[in-house]
């Protein structure tokens, strides 16, 4: 089974992290659904042409974070329901994401009010598209 993961070697982002990130994004976007079987560590390593230990590390992080789960003797699968992060871990991740977002917004000179407006607009677009309505430009 071929997973649509593309890694970019020579970027500033370590390879194992790119794999983690892309699997998470595929799950969030729905191109990987709960119950889907992931390729074995070796198969993915050979597909991406990277060291199997790098893939193993990515899978290990994904299992730890509850995105993937192992079925003993059968392999690695997309987890049925994302395990709930601990409150501390949720807070930590959210803080990190907010720092990046706000840093960029400030760099661009947005006021607090503008930031909130943009955020609200984005949120309403997201909720519309998830209910199947089309979004016109």
């Amino acid at each position, binding site marked *: 089974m071929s997973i649509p993961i593309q890694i970019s070697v020579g970027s500033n982002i370590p390879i194992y992290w790119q794999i983690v990130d892309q699997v998470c994004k595929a799950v969030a976007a729905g191109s990987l659904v709960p119950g889907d079987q992931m390729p074995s560590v070796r198969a993915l390593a050979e597909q991406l042409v990277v*060291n199997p230990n790098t893939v193993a590390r990515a899978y290990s992080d994904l299992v730890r974070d509850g995105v993937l789960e192992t079925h003993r003797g059968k392999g690695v699968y997309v987890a049925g329901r994302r395990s709930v992060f601990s409150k501390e871990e949720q807070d930590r991740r959210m803080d990190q994401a907010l720092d990046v977002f706000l840093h960029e917004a400030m760099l661009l000179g947005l006021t607090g009010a503008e930031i909130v407006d943009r955020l609200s607009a984005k949120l309403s677009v997201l909720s519309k598209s998830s209910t199947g309505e089309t979004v016109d430009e």
Partner: protein
Amino acid sequence: MSDYAIEAHGLTKYYGSREIVSRLDLAVPRGSIFGFLGRNGAGKSTTIRMLMGLVEPTRGAATVLGYDCRNLPPEARARIGYLPEGHNVYDWMTVEQCRNFQSAFHARWSDKIFWGVIDHFGLKSKAKAKNLSRGERAGLCLALTLAPEPDLLVLDDPALGLDPVARRSLLESMIYVTRKEDRTILFSSHLLADVERVTDRIAVLDGGVLRADCLLGTFQERIRRFRLKFEGSVPDPAALPKLLHSTPGDHELLLTFANSDRDVQDRLSALAPTRIDEVPIGFEDAFIDFIGDRGRKSLFLDESAQ
């Protein structure tokens, strides 16, 4: 069986009064893919030739698969696949004749592997070696090296002169080879993107001296780059500890450090910048800053350094 496919202690080589390799201690874990890096002339090929028993060390010792490198018996050579720099073959031989020639030396030989690699590189059995491109010769040499199913592969700059497709085939073969868990690969390379893809551990040789010996991830974590912005003039960073490289800019400094710690952070703050940001740095840039001119501060990177 030892945990290490290769162990070197104090390996040293002088040519006349020139020290080419200086007191090298190395341990290549069994089952690992080990990248041997360094600038041209750093001593990598000489080290490899010493390990393969082709050059006599001036001092020091090494074992390869448990055998003394100065005296590798046939049973050791049967388990080592050595691919020297340059992909040399007898140019009057065809691919098939090379196979016949090489297989006669080996008790163990897999035609399945030989022709599999030949096929992977798109070669024909009747092709004459002298008509092969560089990449095709590399494929042939790799097939000849892999067919005896060696436990240890030693590849000296195997991607030299290869086009991107051949390079990719080479990498794929390297990963494929490690399907058998006890197989070890030691290879030297300048192609840092390839090194980043496939290695577990790296060792960096600089002017004959070992300057790093660690997991690839450790190297990447320990080399960090910061951007400092200044309102007025930009201070001279030369006195900063653990500094590998500095790039001055317009009211800013870009600084790369090895093993940056609390002390470094304090010294950066003491320069009174208006802001300090960490800037992500890729493996190639980190390596260049580590090994470049400014890096001559004997900074050593291994698992234990902090």
